[in-house]
């Protein structure tokens, strides 16, 4: 046990003190934050450019319609010929000229409105102009029809379907996608962690082989202890890195954004949401619905979710990293690992794709169930199903328990298998092993 702790400590320190590790740990959040800052800054610079649009209104309909806003300021031109207006807009360097021709019918006027500009105008200016015009047209028409704003308000009713589950609780649209998103996040985290730090374990085993220190060490400790210490030490280093990334990226983003004078809140409203989605969101964002979302969020079994995450994460990581360790032990250098990597990556990829395409759609469908029971994919797929809850409408208890039991059995089996391969492999030099050869190793005493 003492020796295991010694090994864990050494592996941890060796990893954490490694220059490339330090550089990666420090630089990654900086780079990400710098990128975000750059994008935000550029967007800001872009939108701060003052754009002046001249309006030549010859009709009686559009007076006071064009107020200076965020996207452009408007300049009123009056009683000058069109050509002269175009020329002066051009010579003054304005963004464009909106020409509203004269006429008595608002429809035909609107039909003939022209926007003169040097280049093709940006979408937000165009959208804003179009919005202003169509609002005015609508208002004018309504008043000709003698419909009051009250009538319009009474008419303007968005319909929203009420969703209720069998036990009579109210549900909200989009919540299952939201839950799947949370589960997907957990699953993705597990996969990324396995791929990144599993490879670290493998490289570290290969390093011990190539520096030939392995025989010195295993004359002091059992190969299994060394393997386990390596896996745990590397994963602790990995967790350290993840925590540093998350915390520092959070702090840095906050600092940078506040230095640049951008409120976090405005960031959200500027997010790239299509107008339709925005519309739906706005429509459903009544106080009532928000409350429902909050209720649903609270209803996600966070306790179960976090406990399961820790369980699936550790078991999944241990299974995969011991396979990685065995691969590292079997080969002499990293290029020889290719033939063994494919079978390792495949179930991980499969789990993610099955998760995104099948589990999100139907968290309790046969595919989702099968993959959340199969031990090589269950850490990822089950995590995607779990935010829906356990028992009742969620994952049946028997599935969760079976899945965990299978995972534990597989864990014991794989670690046993990997330890055997590892023990023989670390002392084998010079030949590139085949699957057949490795199978033979399993029979060695």
């Amino acid at each position, binding site marked *: 046990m003492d*020796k295991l702790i*010694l*090994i864990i400590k*050494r592996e941890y320190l*060796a990893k954490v003190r*490694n220059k490339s590790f330090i550089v990666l740990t420090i630089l990654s959040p900086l780079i990400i934050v710098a990128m975000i800052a750059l994008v935000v800054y550029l967007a800001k610079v872009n939108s701060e450019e003052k754009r002046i649009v001249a309006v030549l209104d010859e009709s009686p309909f559009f007076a006071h319609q064009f107020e200076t806003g965020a996207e452009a300021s408007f300049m009123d031109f009056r009683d000058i010929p069109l050509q002269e207006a175009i020329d002066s807009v051009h010579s003054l360097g304005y963004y464009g000229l909106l020409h509203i021709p004269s006429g008595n019918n608002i429809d035909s006027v609107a039909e003939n409105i022209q926007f003169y500009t040097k280049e093709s105008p940006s979408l937000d200016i165009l959208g804003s102009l179009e919005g202003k015009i169509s609002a005015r047209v609508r208002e004018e028409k309504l008043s000709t029809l003698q419909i009051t704003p009250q009538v319009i308000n009474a008419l303007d009713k968005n319909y929203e379907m009420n969703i209720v589950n069998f036990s009579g609780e109210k549900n909200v649209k989009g919540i299952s996608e939201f839950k799947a998103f949370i589960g997907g996040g957990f699953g993705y985290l597990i996969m990324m962690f396995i791929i990144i730090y599993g490879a670290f374990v493998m490289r570290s085993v290969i*390093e*011990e082989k190539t*520096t*030939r*220190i392995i*025989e*010195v*060490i*295993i*004359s*002091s*400790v*059992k*190969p299994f202890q060394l393997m386990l210490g390596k896996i745990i030490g590397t994963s602790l280093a990995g967790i350290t890195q993840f925590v540093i990334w998350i915390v520092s990226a959070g702090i840095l983003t906050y600092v940078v954004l506040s230095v640049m004078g951008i409120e976090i809140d405005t960031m959200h409203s500027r997010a790239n949401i299509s107008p339709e989605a925005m519309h739906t969101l706005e429509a459903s964002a009544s106080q009532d619905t928000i409350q429902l979302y909050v209720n649903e969020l609270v209803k996600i079994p966070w306790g179960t979710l976090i406990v399961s995450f820790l369980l699936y994460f550790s078991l999944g990581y241990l299974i995969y990293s011991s396979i990685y360790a065995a691969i590292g032990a079997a080969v002499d250098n990293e290029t020889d690992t290719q033939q063994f990597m494919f079978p390792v990556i495949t179930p991980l990829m499969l789990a993610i794709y099955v998760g995104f395409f099948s589990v999100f759609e139907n968290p309790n469908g046969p595919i989702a169930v099968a993959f959340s029971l199969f031990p090589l994919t269950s850490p990822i797929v089950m995590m995607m199903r779990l935010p829906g809850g356990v028992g009742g409408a969620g994952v049946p208890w028997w599935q969760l328990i079976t899945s965990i039991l299978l995972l534990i059995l597989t864990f014991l089996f794989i670690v046993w298998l990997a330890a055997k391969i590892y023990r023989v492999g670390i*002392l084998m*030099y010079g030949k590139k092993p085949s699957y057949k050869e490795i199978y*033979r190793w399993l*029979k*060695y*005493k």
Partner: protein
Amino acid sequence: MPNLLVAENVSKTFGNHTALNNVSLEIPEGTIFGLLGPNGAGKTTFIRIINQITYPDKGKVIFNGNPLNPDHIKMIGYLPEERGLYKSMKVGEQALYLAQLKGMSKADAQKKLKYWFERLEIGDWWNKKIQELSKGMAQKIQFVVTVLHEPKLLIFDEPFSGFDPINANLIKDEILRLKENGATVIFSTHRMESVEELCDHIALINKSNKILDGKLIDIKREFKNGTFEVGLETLQKEPLKKELEEKYTVTDAHFKSLGDELKLRVQLKKGETANDLLAHLSSRGMITHFVEVVPTANEIFIETVKRN
């Protein structure tokens, strides 16, 4: 002298390959035991069994009176032939780590490391990384790490490889000193002159079988066949040679001398003594050279392996 290590009928196979076949060995305490054999004979497998890196299929190993068990690991120091250190770890840190893996406390390891580093004059390397050191320097560290925990049994597999003659000599003296202090040494090498110099006992393994073992002196006695190298100043070289050939088995000898004397290797017949030959020769001329030919470890090695 009690035996520190006894192997009884140890066998080990890897798939279809037999690495050790029924090998029995006794290694007396406080001696240097040469474990010899051609490449691939099974020496490394035997050493790995002692180190509990691998386990015998059949037979057993007794260490210090008890069947080999994990408690013995800290009583054994092993310098493998395939050896190395973590390249990017600092010397001191690494030595401490390896010592602690052998069960030493940190304080104890620190104290002893200081002693050894001073002894081998490598104290100022403590904060260097292994990759900054030369191969010979790294080998010194490796030697220190092997002996640091004062093991009862030391196993050196080609300990002199990578050393210049001066440092090889230094290490040789250290090995002898460790033996003086009571350690038992298993010494595996292909350099027969160091076997000659260091080993009290040897065992020869060839093709998974032990083909020879015992005290080096006894083995030599067994292998000598009453052959003498003689130098004789005489005017009648050819007639004398013919005369000797009638009585003994005679071949030409080649050794360095000042004169142009007759140089022969003469093998006695059974029952004859060196004195008989000496008396015969002294009546024929001036004897300049008379040495019993004792087989070298190298000759014994080659002859035994060939005969097998």
